[in-house]
């Protein structure tokens, strides 16, 4: 079901290079003009100071924080019982290109630069459609590096801190990232198992003895096998059979024969059976089996066609969203 009539993505040689340079120049000039004419990418924000006071604990370990502006905060300030105070600034972003800005609004340089960066990166990735080029390579290098680090940070805080450390040394986590952790939260010995397995896994880095990493791998794959076997048998096998079982003689609310629902019930049953025959491994697809299997593959093709049609819808929306970003948030054209 495929073709080998391919069009090769041309390399950026001689003429190509000139094309790229001209294109780039046009883009840069366009961007500069857009920057001045359309205020492209400008983000305005309203700054706001958050300030809190602690009413209990010590200066080193303050407790019971309340907003300074709250009743309790003001009362404590008046009574002089504030242990320690802290304040920082947050900002509220205004909609892109909003005409009437409040007086307190200021332009946020870091967010404006951010929108420009985002727009340029969007164009860099899209440039791959013309052919592989230095802009795409740069964007690709950035996304690989930054996203790998992003996931490391995320798994460190959500996996190692919030799952492993919190269950082995709750006190440490309470004083560090999660002061809200209940005081009666105790450690769980069972989490020594993942700790040991993790250490074994990291042994892979050692010049010799890396084979010890096979133990945790065996643990994971064994657990996966057992867990998935049950989960899929229950939800995919039993539930789908159950869902298909219905009366082939359909009736409506008045208890009289309903023609089209009956047809569809029969078609569904026969289609499922035909597809199952298609998946048979121990019978050659000849004779009656072959004909039924062919019916099965036809049903599968309709299934795939329908899924294709529905998916197109989603993919186009994604592109719309990107253009929305470029035209609205960056160029302020809409």
């Amino acid at each position, binding site marked *: 079901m*495929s*073709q080998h009539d391919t069009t090769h993505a041309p390399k950026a040689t001689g003429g190509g290079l000139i094309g790229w340079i001209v294109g780039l120049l046009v883009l840069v000039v366009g961007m500069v003009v857009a920057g001045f004419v359309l205020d492209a990418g400008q983000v305005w924000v309203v700054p706001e100071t958050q300030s809190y006071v602690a009413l209990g604990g010590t200066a080193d370990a303050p407790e019971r924080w309340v907003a300074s502006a709250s009743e309790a905060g003001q009362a404590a300030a008046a009574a002089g019982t504030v242990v320690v105070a802290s304040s*920082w600034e947050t900002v509220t972003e205004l909609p892109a290109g909003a005409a009437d800005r409040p007086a307190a609004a200021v332009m946020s340089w870091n967010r404006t630069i951010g929108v420009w960066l985002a727009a340029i990166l969007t164009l860099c990735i899209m440039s791959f459609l013309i052919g592989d080029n230095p802009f795409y*390579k740069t964007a690709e*290098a950035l996304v690989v590096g930054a996203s790998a680090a992003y996931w490391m940070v995320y798994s460190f805080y959500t996996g190692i801190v919030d799952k492993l450390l919190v269950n082995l040394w709750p006190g440490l986590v309470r004083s560090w990232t999660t002061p809200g952790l209940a005081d009666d939260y105790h450690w769980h010995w069972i989490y020594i198992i993942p700790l040991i397995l993790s250490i074994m896994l990291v042994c892979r880095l050692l010049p010799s003895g890396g084979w010890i990493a096979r*133990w945790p791998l065996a643990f994971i794959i064994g657990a996966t*096998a057992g867990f998935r076997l049950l989960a899929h048998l229950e939800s995919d096998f039993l539930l789908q059979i159950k869902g298909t079982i219905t009366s082939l003689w359909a009736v409506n609310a008045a208890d009289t024969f309903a023609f089209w629902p009956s047809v569809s019930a029969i078609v*569904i049953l026969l289609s499922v059976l035909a597809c199952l025959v298609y998946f048979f491994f121990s019978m050659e697809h000849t004779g009656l089996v072959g004909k039924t299997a062919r019916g099965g593959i036809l049903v599968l093709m309709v299934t795939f066609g329908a899924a294709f049609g529905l998916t197109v819808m989603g993919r186009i929306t994604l592109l719309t969203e990107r253009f929305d970003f470029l035209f609205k948030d960056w160029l302020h054209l809409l």
Partner: protein
Amino acid sequence: MIAKRTIPLFIAALVGVLMIATYFVPYTEKWGADAMEMFIILAAAAMVLGAGNLLLLNLSKISNRQPGWGYAGITLTAFFVTLIIGLFKIGAMPTSSAATNAWTAPVVQEGSPFWWIYKYGLVPLTATMFAMLAFYIASAAFRAFRAKNVEATLLLGTAFIVLLGQVYAGVWLTDFLPTLESYVAGFPAASQEFVLAVGMQVKAGVPLTDVVVGGVAYANMVGEHHALAIETNNYIGGWWYQLLNGLRLENLTQVILDVPQKAGNRAIMIGIALGIVSTSLKVILGVDRSYLGSAD
């Protein structure tokens, strides 16, 4: 040999069987889910291996001056900048429940440098990669959707109908086929409201004897209304109207999704479940041990 091969095989078999057995005892039912949860810790720890590999690969590219080594430099820089800012929560703000401790900040906190990288770096990059699919799907439709044989024709024909049925074009293209509204429009203005009310109930599957319009049950309808109700019921409830109405592109799309599509997906799911059972058993029984590497 024993430590390298036999013990791992034993661990996999034991853990696998245990996962299955505990599922049927209420007290241990959740062990499977718990094991999957522990997996998160292992996957996080394994990140060290991935990161180490990423470093080695890119460093060697740079030191060997391989083609494109400059990009390896960009990757490493992006990696370290993101990692350090994120890990040490640089520039993060405290939360209202611990106003002096910036460590309590959520990992991605609005306004923090890590959020900036996420929002203005990662989001546009990944969202644009995803959006490129709209282009590829167009090129695949032009290139690969050829009516070479019956299978391919069915695939593209179904895609064709669903594509049109999902947007207003479907409504517009098959506007000549009847709907309840077009049927109602054929009546004199005075009875339209009545016919519409009966038609909607019939369409919803209400039997004629249970139809109620404006508080009047079918049994109490007289004269013209009685006749109209029967006529509407016969037309809207009849298979001929239902066939024609079902052929409207927007309805046909629903039928395709509800009947053959549902059947095909069910068969695929049943097959997949059996495939998974067999693959899992092969792992647990040690019939397939390729994931364990060699014996020495």
